[in-house]
């Protein structure tokens, strides 16, 4: 049953995309470690982390696409789940520092020492154990999503109302995490990590592994997402998006359907955050900023919502663009970025991938039409297909 569930996911584009991801998971580290720095094919270490970051963003966008593109829930708070996953990982990394902090306190992270806290807050316990931390990466965002969704979907909050309260959620969390008394390092957040599972986070090797992991995780989540999308459940999701009441009158429990999707998506976002933190070396409340969550929506839209591949491409394109422009035209990059968003909404309403697919389908339809007309003489087909 499971295997059928998974096999169903493996449709053309997805297979290719997963292939590509797995390929770069191997290729990029290889080019970084094996190819000498001089060569044109060498990928500098900083670029590895940079791409790693893009992949995490891509995963976040994918997570959003699942709820937005398929279920029609526009979450303006997905950054919150991302950040929570990040914090869970960050807390593990902080505990790993141990007595190598500037104060050399074996237990307390530096920020607690100089705000002279006496003992570790309860919620920091267990984070010295990797498995527990990883569990939390899934549980914390998942739980928040569950509680939030449980109430919101049951009381049938939807449309902009839902969007705005998700925004309120992430905004509230941002304010909360900015407070030093919360015990998460205030606005400085968690940083200056030393190592992860004993490997130095700075080491090129670790960076490459993290990169590879990001790529593999993205591939895995893509697989899952696609499996969900192609299952009957996926069809119901789209149904909910297009005609919620019809789905209800067909006897489906819409709130459960939404809740499940929301939680899965939140967990994916959490994973993305957890992979993001060791690669960029800091997590701080800024990640909760509503603007970040909106940007995720933008990536997804740019790539094409409801296409699974789209958000991945969107996230990478926009962020690659950002990296480039912030360096190349520091004064003017915002014009470029803003312009991009407007252009996409006006000229590519379906997003990059969506538009391509559309063209694809249109051509198929044409082909079909041609077939119907030109009944038997099929030798015309190749030209028609071109």
């Amino acid at each position: 049953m499971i295997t059928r569930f998974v096999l169903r996911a493996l449709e053309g584009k997805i297979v290719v995309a997963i292939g590509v991801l797995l390929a770069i998971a191997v290729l990029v580290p290889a080019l970084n470690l094996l190819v000498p720095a001089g060569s044109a094919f060498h990928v500098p270490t900083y670029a590895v982390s940079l791409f790693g970051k893009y992949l995490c963003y891509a995963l976040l966008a994918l997570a959003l696409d699942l709820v937005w593109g398929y279920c029609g829930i526009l979450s303006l708070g997905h950054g919150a789940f991302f950040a929570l996953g990040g914090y869970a990982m960050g807390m593990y990394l902080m505990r790993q520092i141990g007595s190598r902090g500037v104060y050399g306190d074996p237990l307390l992270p530096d920020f607690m020492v100089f705000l002279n806290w006496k003992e570790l807050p309860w919620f920091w316990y267990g984070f010295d154990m990797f498995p527990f931390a990883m569990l939390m990466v899934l549980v914390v965002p998942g739980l928040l999503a569950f509680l939030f969704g449980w109430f919101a979907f049951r009381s049938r909050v939807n449309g902009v109302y839902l969007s705005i309260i998700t925004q309120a959620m992430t905004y509230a969390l941002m304010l909360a995490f900015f407070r030093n008394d919360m015990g998460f390092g205030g606005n400085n957040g968690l940083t200056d990590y030393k190592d992860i599972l004993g490997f130095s986070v700075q080491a090129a090797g670790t960076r490459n592994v993290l990169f590879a992991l990001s790529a593999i995780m993205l591939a895995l989540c893509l697989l899952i997402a696609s499996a969900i999308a192609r299952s009957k459940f996926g069809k119901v999701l789209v149904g909910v998006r297009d005609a919620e009441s019809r789905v209800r009158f067909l006897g489906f429990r819409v709130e459960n359907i939404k809740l499940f999707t929301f939680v899965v998506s939140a967990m994916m976002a959490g994973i993305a955050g957890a992979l993001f933190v060791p690669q960029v070396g800091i997590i701080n409340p800024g990640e909760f900023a509503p603007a970040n969550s909106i940007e995720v929506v933008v990536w997804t839209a740019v790539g094409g919502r409801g296409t699974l591949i789209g958000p991945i491409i969107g996230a990478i394109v926009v962020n690659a663009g950002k990296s480039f422009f912030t360096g190349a035209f520091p004064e003017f990059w915002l014009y470029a970025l803003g312009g991009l968003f407007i252009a996409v909404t006006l000229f590519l309403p379906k997003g990059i991938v969506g538009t391509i697919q559309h063209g694809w389908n249109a051509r198929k339809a044409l082909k079909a039409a041609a077939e119907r007309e030109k009944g038997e003489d099929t030798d015309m087909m190749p030209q028609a297909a071109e």
Partner: protein
Amino acid sequence: MTTVAETRSKSLLYLENVSVSFDGFKALNALSFVVEPGELRAIIGPNGAGKTTMMDIITGKTRPDTGTVLFEDAIDLTKRDEADIAQLGIGRKFQKPTVFESHTVWDNLELALNRSRGVFATLFYALTGEDRARIEEILETIRLTHRTDELAANLSHGQKQWLEIGMLLAQEPKLLLVDEPVAGMTDAETAETAILLREIAETRSVVVVEHDMGFIRELGVKVTCLAEGAVLAEGSIDFVSSDPKVIENYLGR
């Protein structure tokens, strides 16, 4: 002359003194209404007579202020929500045809099939032979076999109406509520639909709300005329349409 108790116990759907009002306006006013098993019933009435509101109440979309709504003389529908009621076996077709436009005709029916609707059941659902057969059968009934793989969006208005009816059939309901099925249909389609509905009524109860008197005649069944949220008259089409109150309120002179 049967007693209330008897009608009740025989009934499939039983409404008594149902009233509901939206900030002041009384949409239903002590409405009582009974549908027997296997019955095909037509409901007419001017706009605002409460036809749609009645359906909303039966399907759990709206809660009545007062009154009893019983299904099979046992289940109190006022306590259930849409999903529940649908699973009990009450299907509803909206005025405006609502099908899943971005799905194919086939997928629309597959979603509607009366199978376990839990999250995981649907996640791991796989089409079985019998389901396939069932869907094909329905496709026959609703005359859409030739468009199986078409996106619902590309269907004609009439075809959408049929597809929606088909989805209801796939739901295998005991009671089918159909709201203005022939609105915006060609005469040919209308005639077709009449036949279709009669076919369906052979195996289950159907309640049709319709304005089109011609269509009602074609159905040739018991008619209930609603006005101002209450039953005005009930009986054969000729009986009802000759009733002065009905003429006064609805048909007009």
